[in-house]
Every structure is written in structure tokens, then in C-alpha cells.
């Protein structure tokens, strides 16, 4: 039923990205959208259009999975999960966004920051 990226996202999440009608609420409510190069609603659009460049955006790594977008989506799409799926596609190929040995002040950070970073930013 789906093609390309939308199919992969469906397999990883069970979400149908074609439900999105681009209202933009997700991007409006995202706390980190100002630093993202591709806001969440455009990410979903790019998946719909099978544009694989979306995998190179920095949005995937900045998203903190705070779930603001999911809670407010009028069509019930779990946007945080969709972005996480793109992240997983890249991580499963062995991409390491952060090198833990090079993080400054790593001894003072609360462990959950490091553990969360290990899960979200490393393959």
C-alpha cells in the first residue's frame, strides 16, 4: 500500500503518514523547532513524497521525544514515533552521532542524560 520511506516508517511504527494534512500544529508546538533545519510537519511531508534527504536533516537528532506534537496532532499521528523511526533507520546502519569519550564534563552529567544519549544517538 505504501511506497519507499512511508512503507519503512509504517513497518517500524504502524503509523500511516498519509493521514497528515499539513496543518502545522506539530511544528508550532515543538519546543526545539527553532534549531531544526526541517520542522516536523515538513519531515512528515518529505516522507510522504519519499524524499530520502530527510534522513540527513538534523531534526532527527534534536528531537527530544517530548511528545508535544503527538498529543496535539488532530489526525492522531504519533509524530514523535515517526521521527524516531527515521532515527532508527539511520542508527541500525551503525551511525554514531555522538562520541561519548569526547563529551566535556561527562562525569558531572546525570546518568540519565548519558543513557538517553546512548539510546537515541548511537547505533
Amino acid at each position: 500500500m505504501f511506497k519507499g520511506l512511508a512503507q519503512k516508517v509504517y513497518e517500524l511504527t504502524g503509523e500511516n503518514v498519509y493521514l497528515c494534512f499539513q496543518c502545522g500544529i506539530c511544528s508550532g508546538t515543538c519546543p526545539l523547532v527553532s534549531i531544526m533545519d526541517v520542522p516536523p510537519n515538513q519531515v512528515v511531508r518529505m516522507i510522504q513524497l519519499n524524499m530520502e534527504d530527510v534522513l540527513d536533516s538534523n531534526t532527527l537528532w534534536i528531537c527530544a521525544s517530548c511528545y508535544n506534537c503527538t498529543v496535539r496532532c488532530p489526525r492522531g499521528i504519533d509524530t514523535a514515533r515517526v521521527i524516531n523511526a527515521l532515527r532508527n533507520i539511520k542508527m541500525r546502519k551503525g551511525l554514531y552521532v555522538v562520541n561519548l569519550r569526547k563529551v566535556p564534563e561527562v562525569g558531572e552529567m546525570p546518568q540519565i542524560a548519558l543513557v538517553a544519549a546512548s539510546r537515541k544517538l548511537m547505533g
Partner: protein
Amino acid sequence: MYFPGCTLKTTALNYEESALAVARKMGIDLIELDRWNCCGAVLNLAIDSVIHHIGAVRDLVRAQEMGRKLNDNRLVTLCSMCYNVLKRVNELLKIDSEKLKTINEFMDEEENYECGIEVLHFIEVVRDLIGFEKVRELTVKPLNGLKVAPFYGCTLLRPKEIGIDNPENPTTLENLLEAIGAEAIKFPHRIKCCSAYNVVYDKKIAVDRALEIRKAANRWGANVIATTCPLCQYNLTLPSRRPSIPVVYFTELMAYAFGIENVLNPEVRKVISSLLGEDVK
């Protein structure tokens, strides 16, 4: 039964100490889980992912074992991120029996998890089991004059299925603060995200977010921010340009109000007493 989470035993020890003392005052005995391991801090959202859930399930199995001996199936956490992961894994395994089977088979050295544990956050225990009336009764030093901006952070309220309150307009912390005599400032950033683990990747992102949240709290008239999660605490206290507004854990405020402020970290105690206009001991 009580699950601390890795951070509470190290960088956030004051959160644990104040919470355990407050719990004792309210008549709850929090017994630490035996041999627990790190829950994983964030949930991997891909539906076919199994290995990332194993840490959390192992903790639920420990709770199951200990729960049998204590005849109690409730697991309380203090860290909002741990609450989020444990609760979501629990709910996930209740509906996905395939995944439960796979995980049980992989963990062949542990007993099978039977989905009988109930995961609670400490605030839920205060609100539902104890009730704010009792909190009001136990308050010997109402925090009059303290204008507290409650900061929920994201993992406590979202996703809706496991949130402890309405994700758009929560009232739990406000009611709690009023019960201990403080004034709750409902500022709009209270449900925003502190940017969590981005601090590892690019510290500037976290500093910018913290600045915005603290400026908003100041603008709305608050003189202290109360948090529920050690990561929010760390992120909101990162050094930045504006003079800092103090950030404390809500249990530390409760401890002060209950008159057991001797369990608090001396710096925190000083901050709270000076804000109340009392003599600094």
C-alpha cells in the same frame, strides 16, 4: 517498592533523601528494589525493537519477585524519565503478548514477567494515596511568600495514555504547592521540554532552553522553580547569562514545609529560608 534510577543514587542524591524523608513523614515506607539495573531512560519507539526494553523488563521482574514477598505490586519511582519508560514498557507488554514471549524467552535466567506490576510516580502516591488534605495537616511551616513555578517537564505528562494528569492543563503540582502553603505560578512554560539529552550532543541547545524557561518564570513573578526530574534540574541550572532563579525539587519544598528541613542539602536549605525571609541558619 521503590525504584531509584541511576541518577538518584549519584548526582541527584538530595532528591532521594528529601523524598524518602517526606514519605516517612506521610507514613509510607519506600523499600528499595533489590539488584535493580538501569531502566534505559528513554523508550525506543520502533515497534520491532526488543533489546532496548530488556533493562526495564528485568526491573519489572525484580519488582515481581520482591512484590510477592512483600505482598504489594506497586512500584514507585521518583525520576520522571524512569516512570515514563517503566510505565510504557509495562503497558506495551500488557497488549503485545508476542513481544512479552520473546523477551521472556531471551531472559531465560529470570522468571517470566506476568504483567502484574503497577508503576506509579511519587506525585501520584501523594495525590491519590495520601491526599492533599493530609499534606496540609502535616505542614508545620507553610511556605508563605514563596512563589513557586512548577515545572512538569515532558515525560510526566505525555503520552496521554500514561500521563499522570491532563497534558495541556495539569493541576497536580499546583494543588500540592497550595497545600504546603506556597503560591503556585501557572506559567505557560511549565509543560515545555527542557531538551533532555541534547545537553550531551550540543550543550548550547540546553542552555538556550533553560534561559527561556527561567526568563518566563521570572516574568510571571516566580521566585523559585520546582522540578520533578533530575535531568530537568540539571538542564535548568546550567550556567547562563541572567542571574539565576533557584531550581529545587518539589520534595525539598515539601520537606521544608513538614519541618524536617535537616535532611536537606545545606545550600538548598539556605536558599529556601532566605526566600521566605527567615534567618539563614
